[in-house]
């Protein structure tokens, strides 16, 4: 039996439930989502798309060797242009090759490295190196991975193995790079410069790589000839956008916006290069800066909806240098430093920390 007051209680409870669950909750939760962007209807003959990618055609009937070559060309395309679609396509193709193939495993580790899945890449390389300790690409990628993870002992071991299988100039380069990373950049710079004056036998790619290491060490010690040291690297490897970005960054730190823009001109619209472009345009007082700024803001917002950690460094830099949000930048720079610990990552973290201190 339900008496009068119990009945009133039940009735008021139901009313309350309706109010709480039927009205309040939907209002508060539906405010989170965004509406879809507007739809346009172009004229019939309007050109709506141009093919600016250079993805190699992927036939369905290719053998294992052809597939690996295709994967290599897609990774190279991704490296040069920053094209993530090429990397995703390479990974799909690689799944068609048996996992027991060591070359395929190394390429898979390179893809994971580029996706910043460093632990997974390192585990794959350990397996390859256990089976074939002198695999050149596995050793080189293992060296790069160890450097980015701040494991200089592992990096040194991979570096020595590269020397023992004939890559003597690369061994010198990575040995001096590690010396610089461990706190002796001046000694490393002087030593590598002496090596380059009388180098062991090498091919031009080894020279380009070593020259880039020397330029990076020069930047680390604030050497006044840093640009002059980057130029031979870029002459030997014009599509080395990493070195181009480092040189542009050096110019920007020394208020030489026009020189930075000249180096960046004609290079792809990757996020790192675009951030440098924007800083340069701002320094130069160019009106083009605003539209690029808006586009980058929109791109970082869109990338943030995905599950990716690969934009952490650039997003932190964007927030620090262009959005004047040091706290948010520091948070991302810390997250980034947990994953990768190269010179640029450490420098960004220190700058973000200083910016937060200055703002308090």
């Amino acid at each position, binding site marked *: 039996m339900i008496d009068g*007051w119990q009945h009133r*209680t039940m009735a008021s*409870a139901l009313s*309350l*439930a309706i109010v*709480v669950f039927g009205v309040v*909750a*939907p*209002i508060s*939760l539906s405010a989170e*989502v965004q509406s*879809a*962007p507007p*739809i346009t209807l172009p004229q019939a003959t*309007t*050109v*709506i798309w*141009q*093919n600016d990618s250079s993805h190699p055609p992927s036939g369905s009937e290719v053998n294992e060797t052809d597939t690996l070559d295709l994967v290599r060309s897609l990774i*190279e395309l991704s*490296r040069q*242009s920053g*094209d*993530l*679609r090429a990397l*995703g*396509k390479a990974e*799909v193709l690689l*799944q068609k090759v048996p996992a027991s193939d060591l070359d395929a495993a190394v390429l898979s580790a*390179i893809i994971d*490295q*580029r996706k910043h899945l460093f632990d997974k890449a390192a585990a794959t390389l350990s397996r390859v190196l256990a089976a074939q300790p002198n695999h*050149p*690409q596995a050793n*080189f990628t293992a060296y*790069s991975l160890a450097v*980015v993870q701040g494991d200089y002992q592992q990096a040194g071991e991979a570096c020595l193995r590269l020397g023992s299988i004939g890559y003597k100039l690369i061994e010198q380069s990575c040995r001096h790079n590690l010396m610089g990373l461990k706190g002796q950049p001046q000694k490393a710079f002087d030593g590598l410069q002496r090596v380059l004056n009388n180098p062991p036998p090498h*091919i031009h*790619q080894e020279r380009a*790589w070593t020259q*880039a290491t020397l330029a990076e060490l020069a930047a680390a010690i604030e050497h006044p000839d840093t640009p002059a040291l980057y130029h031979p690297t870029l002459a030997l490897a014009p599509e*080395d956008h*990493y070195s181009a*970005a480092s040189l542009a960054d050096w110019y920007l730190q020394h208020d030489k916006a026009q020189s930075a823009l000249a180096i960046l001109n004609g290079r*792809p619209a*990757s*996020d*790192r290069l675009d951030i440098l472009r924007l800083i340069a345009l701002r320094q130069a007082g160019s009106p083009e800066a605003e539209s690029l700024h808006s586009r980058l803001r929109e*791109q*970082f917002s*869109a990338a943030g909806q*995905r*599950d*990716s950690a*690969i*934009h952490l*460094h650039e997003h932190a830099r964007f927030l620090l240098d262009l959005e004047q949000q040091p706290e948010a930048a520091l948070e991302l720079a810390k997250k980034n430093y947990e994953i*990768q610990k190269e010179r*640029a*990552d450490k420098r960004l973290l220190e700058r973000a920390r200083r910016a937060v201190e200055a703002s308090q």
Partner: protein
Amino acid sequence: MKRVVIAILLYGFAVNTAFSHEASTSYLYWHSEQPNTLRLDLALTDVMLHLTPETPPQLTWVELKNQADAIARHLVSDIVIRKGQAACELEAELSGLTEYADESFSVWQVHWQCPQEAGIFQPTTLDYRLLFNEDSLHRAVLTRHAPGMWLLPSGIHVLKPDSLPSTLLPPVSQNAAYGVLAALLTAGVLLIVRIRRLSSRQRA
């Protein structure tokens, strides 16, 4: 041989090399007011790289419209809507273009009809598989707009190759059950408060 290897060695260099933001991403919008329709925004680059027999140097609107039926067949074969266990029948139509961060996207309206036997007591789910076999980094961002639906409120979900099917519309029975449970819980709390008050009065 050494030259080949050294060229590849450079892949490992510059881990910090930045990417463009153009990872393949599609956008899906579902609104509870039109529960049998989904808007799919798909980058024209993805359409032309993966859903057409050839990738032309450029494309006009009329050329896209001429291929729309064939592309739509691809779309509906890799998007599965189910009412309970029953697969619904989908069709897609091209409705225009839109933009995300300076990249052009085609806009498709995907409509479906579910078998009669799948009643209102079954949830409607979306199993998105589009482009995952072509690009492992492809993701879909699903915006589910459901004002008034407290059990499964509005939200944004990133769909990946290993994602489970997403629920678009929860079953009515589940809604009702949670509604009754919520009401009973509230009634219970009020009842306890009332009993305690009565006890206090009696003691006084």
